[in-house]
């Protein structure tokens, strides 16, 4: 106790260092950043191939395809969020840090979002054009992605933390995260569809904001708890 009060705790600096580390890692093995984007692009370009390439049908399906692509690619990239740290022993160091774990974890999730969800958001308009989404739908699509993908990262990180010690936890992660993802998917595609048809869509958007805020408050605690529990 005394020790802590003597030394001022530099929690913010630790978070920044963690974010810097994760971003450096991401840039150094650029696969990590391109991965979700390529997957996203892939899902979006596979669909027209597998399905009849009809412009009208495609433009109706576009919001769904794009959002499902984003959801899947975030989910895929989540698997290694804590596992890579666990494999090389860094997770032990994270757990041994005097700073609040929830804060550190939030930093990790933030850099994960920057390298996945944020990039997807930036890329989405391109895909929207490729899939013939009507012009009115493009801004709402980007906005829902901007609000929705952090929720995906936060919620998925809980699953990632719970499955960090499990050899091939991919499926469990999927199963655990999915129930939290489906509401986001429904509201987001609802908003885009409404906007594309010229209907009001701020109701849907409000819900996404609510999800985001509650995720920001609660998820870090859950993630930190899960990590402590699971590390035996």
């Amino acid at each position, binding site marked *: 106790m005394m020790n802590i009060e003597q030394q001022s705790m530099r929690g913010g600096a630790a978070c920044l260092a963690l974010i810097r580390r994760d971003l450096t890692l991401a840039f150094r*093995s650029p*696969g990590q950043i391109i991965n979700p984007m390529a997957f996203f692009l892939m899902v979006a*370009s596979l669909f*027209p*191939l597998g399905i009849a*390439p009809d*412009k009208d049908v*495609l433009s109706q399906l576009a919001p769904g395809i794009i959002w499902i692509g984003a959801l899947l690619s975030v989910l895929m990239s989540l698997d290694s969020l804590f596992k890579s740290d666990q494999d090389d022993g860094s997770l032990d160091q994270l757990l041994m840090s005097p700073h609040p774990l929830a804060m550190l974890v939030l930093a990790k999730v933030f850099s994960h979002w920057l390298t996945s969800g944020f990039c997807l958001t930036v890329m989405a308009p391109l895909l929207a*054009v490729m899939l*013939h989404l009507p012009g009115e739908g493009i801004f709402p699509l980007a906005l829902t992605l901007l609000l929705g993908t952090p929720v995906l990262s936060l919620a998925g990180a809980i699953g990632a933390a719970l499955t960090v010690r499990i050899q091939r936890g991919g499926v469990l992660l999927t199963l655990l995260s999915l129930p939290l993802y489906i509401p986001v998917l429904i509201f987001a595609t609802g908003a885009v569809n409404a906007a594309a048809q010229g209907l009001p869509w701020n109701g849907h958007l409000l819900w996404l904001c609510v999800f985001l805020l509650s995720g920001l408050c609660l998820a870090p605690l859950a993630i930190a708890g899960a990590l402590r529990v699971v590390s035996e």
Partner: protein
Amino acid sequence: MMKWTFFHKLGSPKWFYDISGKWLPWLQITSLLSLVVALIWGLAFTPPDYLQGNSYRIIFIHVPASFLAQAIYMMMATAAAVLLIWRIKLADMALKVMAPIGASFCILSLATGAIWGQPTWGTWWVWDARLTSMLILLFLYIGIIALRGAIQTSEVAAKACAILSLVGVVNIPIIKYSVNWWNTLHQGATLKLTEKPSMAPEMLWPLLLAILGFYLFFTLVMFLRLRVEILSREKKTRWVKALVGE
């Protein structure tokens, strides 16, 4: 015995550096000349198409770029085979420098095709077989470039890229014949070696010249890049030091 000396000569970067140095001026002149003549001829002096009006003139860029994008891939596959069988370093250097050039032509083909699609099909992009397979070819190029970037040890990267290039060859026939297999919007082949072309000769000749010009231009760019690559990889050898010291 004869064959072997020939190969070793070809495989020697120094030999290639010397020879390509002599070719460079010729390549520069011929590629520039043929490109300029073909483009001016094609863009200004050929009559407009009776169906598409003037928009068809992009053909003089689109078709050569498309041809080259595929041809470069085949050259890369050949280089890959040479590398794996005879372990010739020069083949790897060629493999390395050709990939970005091929990707550029691929992007050029996609872009010109998209621009052309706007007036003719009324859309930038359709998911038809030829277009999609061209996109896949771009993925292949990017994959090869990325694989090389991802493996640190250069010898390992070289062989890995060679294997990948060889495996990817299966896609070339698919691009080539996709138009015949699926009924698509995109035009079938009009230029065939076996048959007489169905194109009007006043369009055909500038097109052929443009294709030639693009090939020469590609050779020029490749030689330039290859020479730089040779210098950077052989920077420790005596002849490069002597060359730089000059």
